[in-house]
């Protein structure tokens, strides 16, 4: 039997009648039409389905929606704010860090969480943060370069405009 659950996704509240054994990945894709969240294995092995739960990267294929009704969920669709791209989205595009693009949403979300916790990550921190996200195209080199470039871009922004104008960070923890 389906159960009525409430999910907070990308700042929007959704009531969904979902099968209780369906994963967050299935509900996001099938019930909410948020197909930007990808699935590569549905066993928690590849990282393609990474979303942010209260700012923390989790694998939506291993998460039951009923357990995360009180969390703020961020998917790739929520990384962009009112048509403005997150710096990571810009640098991934500009520096060739997305080839087939299938792992890209998951890596962008894991990367956004990394830059929130470590605005200037070392290469080792970046590798550690992205070690659960498999990419089969890039050899990761261009991904590191894009993370570094986004970090610099965000630093410049902070320095140039002052703290208050920091670009809204979807990796930020939920208020209330």
């Amino acid at each position, binding site marked *: 039997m389906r159960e009525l659950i409430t999910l907070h996704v990308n700042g929007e509240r959704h009531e969904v009648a979902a*099968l209780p054994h369906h994963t967050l990945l299935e509900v996001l*894709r*099938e019930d909410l*039409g*948020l*197909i*930007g*969240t*990808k*699935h*590569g*294995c*549905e*066993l928690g*092995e*590849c990282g*393609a389905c990474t979303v942010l739960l209260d700012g923390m990267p989790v694998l939506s294929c291993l998460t039951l929606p009923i357990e995360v009704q009180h969390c703020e969920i961020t*998917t*790739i*669709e929520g*990384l*962009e704010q009112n048509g403005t*791209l997150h710096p990571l*989205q810009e640098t*991934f*595009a*500009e*520096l*060739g860090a*997305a*080839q*087939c*693009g*299938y*792992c*890209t*949403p998951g890596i*962008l979300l894991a990367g956004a969480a990394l830059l929130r916790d470590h605005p200037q990550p070392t290469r080792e921190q*970046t*590798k*550690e943060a*992205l*070690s*659960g*996200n*498999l*990419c*089969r*195209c*890039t*050899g*990761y*080199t*261009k991904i590191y*370069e894009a993370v570094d470039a986004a970090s610099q871009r965000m630093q410049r922004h902070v320095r140039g405009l002052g703290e208050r104008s920091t670009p809204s960070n979807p990796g930020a923890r939920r208020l209330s």
Partner: protein
Amino acid sequence: MSATLHHQQKHSYRVIGTPRPKVDVYGKVTGRALYADDIMLPRMLYGRLLRSPHPHARILSIDIRRALELPGVVAILTGDDLPEKFGILPSSQDEYALALEKVRYVGDPVAAVAALDPDTLDEAIKLIQVDYEVLPALMSIDEALAHPDVKINDDARIGNIHKAVSYEFGDVNAGFAEADFIREDWFYYEGNTHAPIEAHACVASWEPNPGSPVGGKLTLWSSTQTPHYVHRELSKVLKVPQSHIRVIAPNVGGGFGGKSDPFSHEICASELSRRTGRPVKITCTREEVFLIHRGRHPVKMWIKTGVKRDGTLTAMHFRSFLDGGAYGSYGVATTYYTGVLQTVTYKLPSYKFEGMRLFTNKPPCGPKRGHGTTQPRYAVEVHLDKIAHDLGIDPVALRLHNLIEPYTRTINGLRITSCALGECLQQVVERSGWDTFHAQKNNPPTQGQQEIPLKRGMGIAASSYICGAGKPIYWNDLPHSSVQIRLDRGGGVTVYCGSTDIGQGSTSILAYIVAEELGIQPEHIHLETADTTLTPVDLGSYSSRVTFMAGNAAIAAARKLKEQLFAVATEHLQVPLEHLEAADGIIYNEHDPGVALPFVKAVQLAEARFGALVTAGSYAPPEGIHGDYKGAGVGPSPAYSYSTCVAQVAVDVETGELVVEKLWLAHDVGQSINPLLVAGQVEGGAYMGYGEAVMEQQVFRKGRHKIPSLLDYKLATTLDTPEIETILIEIPDQEGPFGGKEAGQGPLNPVIPAIANAVYDAVGLRIDETPITPDKILRALKATAATRPTQRIVVSPQEAPSPWPTRLITWSPREASTQPSQVISQSVSTKGVS
């Protein structure tokens, strides 16, 4: 940037050669890009295949009654519903969409179900009752050779030999007689798989039309690299004319060769849609992707090479035994590819090649990045390294001494055009600090220095690859690639091409080329690709053919439009044709840029003059680029790319742990259309080669895939992947688009032997099989320490069939055209622009 460019001269290109984003990348970084599984249609059903649990069995009966009675099940297919054979090659039509009579590997599809939702499918699949008579299974090359009585596939001519080939080019006996030194080696290259992050998926939608003699039309969206061949095979199996089938490849989440065959799930989804009158989606599970496979063939190889004292190669005899799995797939081509390109890297005055592919009860092998050339490249490059050490010649010097020369013919008749292999070798040696590393390594440890367990080594290897297969899969006189361009009076530019972007950037390449020719920005252009109804044929994203072939077709189409635009511009501006330039959205007088016509205005004038502005361009490789013997169609290419790699490794002699610390990779790409994308291909190839060298293996236990998951099938994460330094060498090819050559596959090939040679350099041991894992290193170290050579890793043959089970074809270049190729001098400068 870690990539550096070395090129001959600076061109005045506006778009070509400049790093820029892919034209479709913003969809990918925002989650908007639609992949096959993202397509949801009204009333859509979900489908799944029931697959064989046995590696080899006769199907006695299939009972679908209980499954059909399950609420939510809409239709079920079995083998009798689709009794038409298909396959990617015309010579290997040996697959059924669903097994008839026999299953030949664990994973062979047996039945297909369509239901209202995926949960019902799980139940329905369990309710299908199949009775099998289990047959003996053959799981290796040696078993397949040893048991000709157990016949796996009726396409095998003798026993389980699917294909055997035998060639002698030049006089091999004379070559060996001339040699001062002869060496023989055996190697084994383990199979591995593509593992694209997107699992195969498709959505089929049949639109009935009672008035049509065909009954309707079919549209299939599929994550495929080859919509054209899927189109062909769907037509054959469904018995629907191609004119009534539309195949579309949406965004494809990686392929690497694994999405190049027509597949059962595509045919079954289509037939289920026809029968139910509703769209049907089939998305494969990750385990199914491992079973669909079509990946790297396991290959056992024997090489015998003759050399003179100074290192000059005089003769080579090469044998390959391929473990093909249960079906043909691309295997006939793969068999040839294990032999034909040996002559393209180094000059061989005589060469004998014998290859055979065996059927086994494993998932079918096929093309994976480097298709059939990766295994022999590993074997030959390690074998040459051994010869260098035997002769006391520096391994770099031995290679430089034997390089193939540009604008020559190989002993097996292949035409070589541009070649910057020497430059590639020189660059990786220089950038890796090869000479310094080895000079320091040879210094004896100073007094008091502890013997440390970590041993470092550096190894080198070289390779070459085709820029597109010189012959199509179905031999005909048709173009391999066509492009149409339409201009509209609002200034819109639409480019149509069947080419399929699997992440490598082929769609962007079309935009860059058309933008360069028409003098507009790539972002200005709208692209329609990979759609068999809307777009002219491009054969597909295989054999590294797309930049070269679709690129040349795009240039041809764009130049026709440019002619029309310039014809009106010359009159309107009163500027002679030869002084007109197109750039930055205007057509102008190169001597007086103020005299200019906006692009949109030129389009309107041209439409008024010529009517609708639509042009087309096509490309087919030139004739006469290969020998005139049977089988000469595999190997020729309009150009070859060249790559070299230096690997630096550290081996822990106590644990056998191998760490690849850095890879330097130089690639001769002719001309980068976009250096960012080329470097991305080189880095991706290096990463994949690294995985094949040290961890990836498609292995089986008791007839089943041992590790069909991304956790257990080891693929390199961020924590494993070594640093990769890319060096792009740009010496434009005479026939490539703006001089460009391939980058998608070639750079993988030198990585595996470079790592193997580095391990030898570190610990003085040869591991002559892949992957080079710690347990093998440790076993070899222990065996050496205990001087028990029997425990060494030794690849040994089962009895090689004697005589070789096929007729020997002998051929020498004098029998072909004696006309020497035109020699075009090639000068190189290596200006660095970081």
